[in-house]
């Protein structure tokens, strides 16, 4: 079902945990739908110098969180914002079709953290235009529609 890479990142996830006094924290997902991702960033001079995550969710949710943290570590904010869910999935040698939404969550967790960071620091990133950190919650008014 899962690639070896997914299983590796699930069994040995990188960067699990919290960052005390993180510069940016973002959380996406909904416990109703069975997955929540929380991302902590430490940012220095526009560069992500540390990142941690906590995830409640299935194997691929944990694996994509782990992979996403690896992919943005040491990157600039702009680079991190350009991280696409497809790139995360590809880095994991692919995900089963029903699990692609997990990679979307990972992308959004990063964006959400940076969104709050930008808000707090009065910064503007064109990559965040149109991004709504609460969009995911809204999706779920209809409980039937988790993971569409």
């Amino acid at each position: 079902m899962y690639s070896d890479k997914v299983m590796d990142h699930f069994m040995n996830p990188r960067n699990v945990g919290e960052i005390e006094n993180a510069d940016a924290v973002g959380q996406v997902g909904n416990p109703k739908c069975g997955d929540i991702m929380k991302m902590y960033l430490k940012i220095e001079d526009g560069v992500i110098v540390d990142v941690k995550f906590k995830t409640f969710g299935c194997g691929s949710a944990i694996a994509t969180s782990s992979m996403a943290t690896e992919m943005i570590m040491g990157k600039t904010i702009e680079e991190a914002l350009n991280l696409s869910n497809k790139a995360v999935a590809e880095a994991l040698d692919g995900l089963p079709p029903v699990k692609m939404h997990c990679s979307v969550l990972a992308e959004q967790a990063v964006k959400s953290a940076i969104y709050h960071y930008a808000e707090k620091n009065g910064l503007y990133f064109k990559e965040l235009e149109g991004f709504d950190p609460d969009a995911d919650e809204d999706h779920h008014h209809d409980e039937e529609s988790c993971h569409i």
Partner: protein
Amino acid sequence: MRKKVYLDYSATTPMKKEVLDEMLPFFNVQFGNPSSIHSFGRDNKTAVAKAREQIAKTINAASDEIFFTAGGSESDNWAIKGVAYALKEKGKHIITSKIEHHAVLHTCQYLEKEGFEVTYLNVDAYGLISLEELKAAIRPDTILITIMFANNEIGTVEPVKEIAAMAKAHGITFHTDAVQAYGNLPIDVKELGIDLMSISAHKVYGPKGIGALYVKKGTKLHPLIHGGAQEKKRRAGTENVPGIVGFGKAAEMAFEDLEGHMESLISKRDRLIQELKERIPFMHLNGHPTKRLPGNVNICIQFIEGEALLLSLDMVGIASSSGSACTSGSLDPSHVLMAIGLTHEVAHGSLRITIGDFTTDEDIDYVIQQLPPIVDRLRQMSPLFEKVKGGN
């Protein structure tokens, strides 16, 4: 080789060696079509008749009340649609429960689209239907009550005898899906007053792709599969002779010492539940503590998600499930766990461990040893657990 512990007996069971041995000659030696007149076929007619008798005996039915199908799902579909179409002039109302297997639920939903009306009874926190609610749901145009014998996810055993009595008192046909109960609980169809009952071989150490429907003599029922004259013209198709023979043998073996089988499973089950409770905080048992299938353990482990749990267990060789095997294609939490009133969050953390005849005490020990650290590890990663710890 890595240790492998199969604890998903409710999904399917390994076939017993004796069952396979009985089946083997029918694949390519005694392979004739039972409908044929010649010797290759005649012998098989006898073999099929013997299996029918073996199964009939286990539930106190007459052997001409047993009809072979391709499995539990076909039996459920046949019973429900068969009664619905046979009695649609009399009425178009059906009563079932919210915790039925999808083979029942989706059949009922299909019939709704075709103009039937269906009442889905609620269940309590244990998964038990209420006889009062059932009584209140009965209408003059109710033609069928279909309530499962025991639930495949949480193991709860329904009050079948009382339901059957109520159905009978109102002249309503009563079907029960006993796919999980058969071979794990004593079933006397006459004493219980059952009109139609679905069973499936692969849940009782028999082959996949073969099941049966018990049809009480005189029950009005359209065929689901029309065609040749097999099964007294009620279910067409060349008989799956090896499957039927295997089912017969498996049925016989399952009832050789049903008491012993039940006792052994119940003691392992209760030990596992007890030990896990002591080791894992924020965990609780789903389903009824005693009105429950002997081999069923179903727990919710809060703050973590079921699939992650299954994968982690699989990595240490433990095979288990989260919700019905049939529903694992979907990501919605199980309809059964919803029906007993769990929140989505909690339902997502469900784990079903089902034990069977090949389960040893060492297997149970292994789970007791392996599961708690897995839970710990996943909780350490969970943002939901964070808050709880904080509150401690």
